[in-house]
C-alpha cells in the first residue's frame, strides 16, 4: 500500500522540481552577467584624457574612491542615464570619472557640449582594449572602485535611483575608510 503511494508520488515530485526550476528562471534578465572582477584590483591602464593633454593611469586615482562610468555617444542608454550621472556627481559623494568607450573624440565632445559634462575627467578608450580588461560587454556600465584600487561593485546598464540607493551608497559607506 505505502509503496504504491510512494511510487505514484515520483512523477509529482519530478514535476514540481521542474516547475521550481523553470519558475526560478522566469523574469531573470539573462543579459546581466556577474563580474569576475568584484573584489579584485582594478586593471592597469594608461589612457589619454578627453578633456586635456594629460595621461591618466590607474595610479592617478590611488587613495580616492570613485565611480568609473563606461559611456559612449553612440549608446542610447547612456543618454537615458545621463541625468542620473549628473545628479550623482552634483551631490559630491565621490567623484565620477568617465571611460569613453569605442567612441570618436569629436563626437564625444559634441555629446558633452549638448548634454553637459558630469565627469571629473574622462579616459579615452577608443579601441575598447581597456574595456576588455575591465570585462566590459556593453555600455553603460559603472564600476565602484575604492581607495585601495579594488573594484567593489559593477552595475550593468543605467544608473537609477534604486541601484544608487540600494547598491552603491551602502558600499560607499562600507569602504569609505579606504579614502586617503
Amino acid at each position: 500500500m505505502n509503496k504504491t503511494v510512494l511510487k505514484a508520488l515520483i512523477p509529482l515530485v519530478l514535476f514540481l522540481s521542474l516547475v521550481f526550476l523553470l519558475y526560478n528562471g522566469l523574469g531573470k534578465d539573462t543579459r546581466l552577467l556577474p563580474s569576475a572582477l568584484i573584489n579584485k584590483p582594478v586593471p592597469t591602464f594608461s589612457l589619454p584624457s578627453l578633456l586635456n593633454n594629460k595621461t591618466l593611469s590607474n595610479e592617478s586615482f590611488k587613495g580616492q574612491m570613485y565611480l568609473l562610468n563606461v559611456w559612449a555617444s553612440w549608446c542610447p542608454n547612456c543618454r537615458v542615464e545621463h541625468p542620473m550621472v549628473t545628479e550623482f556627481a552634483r551631490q559630491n559623494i565621490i567623484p565620477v570619472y568617465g571611460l569613453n568607450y569605442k567612441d570618436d573624440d569629436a563626437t564625444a565632445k559634441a555629446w558633452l557640449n549638448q548634454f553637459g559634462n558630469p565627469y571629473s575627467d574622462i579616459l579615452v578608450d577608443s579601441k575598447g582594449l581597456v574595456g576588455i580588461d575591465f570585462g566590459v560587454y556593453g555600455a553603460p556600465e559603472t564600476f565602484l572602485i575604492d581607495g585601495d584600487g579594488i573594484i567593489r561593485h559593477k552595475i550593468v546598464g543605467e544608473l537609477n535611483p534604486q541601484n544608487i540607493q540600494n547598491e552603491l551608497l551602502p558600499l560607499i559607506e562600507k569602504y569609505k575608510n579606504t579614502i586617503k
Partner: protein
Amino acid sequence: MKNIIYALLLLANSVFAIDIHEFKTEQQRLDYQQLTEELRCLVCQNQNIADSDAGLAKDLRNEVAKLVKQDMNQTQITDYLVERYGDFVRYDPPMRADTIVLWALPLFVLLLAAFIVIRTIKKNANSPHSQANTITNNTNEAD
C-alpha cells in the same frame, strides 16, 4: 543572370565575419580557430565569437589573435578571458564544487534510466505472463 545574383548574395553573407590575421605557424592558426569557436560572445549569448558580428566579438577575436601571436597557449588565453569576463565566456564550463551538479546530473539521470531499463527487462524475462502477474500483484497490494 539569376545565378550571378545568387552567387553575390552568398558572397555577401560570408564576408561579414572574416577578419584577416596572419599567423606565423599552423599551430597558431589552429589555436585561434579553436579558441574563437569555444569562446562565447557576451552580447549575443548563443553565438561563439567566431560566428558573431557584434562589435565586442570582433574585439575579442582581435584580442585572441594578438595573444596567440604572443605564443600564449589555449589554456592561458582562456584563463586570461575568464579573469575578465568570468566563466560565462566559456562554452565548456570547468568542473568545480559549485558546478558539480551541472556535470553529475546527466550522469545520474543516465544511470537511473539504465537501472529502470534493466529492471524492466529482468521483470519481463522472469515472468512470461507479466501483464497478468502485475494485475494480481496490484490487487494483492491493494488488499
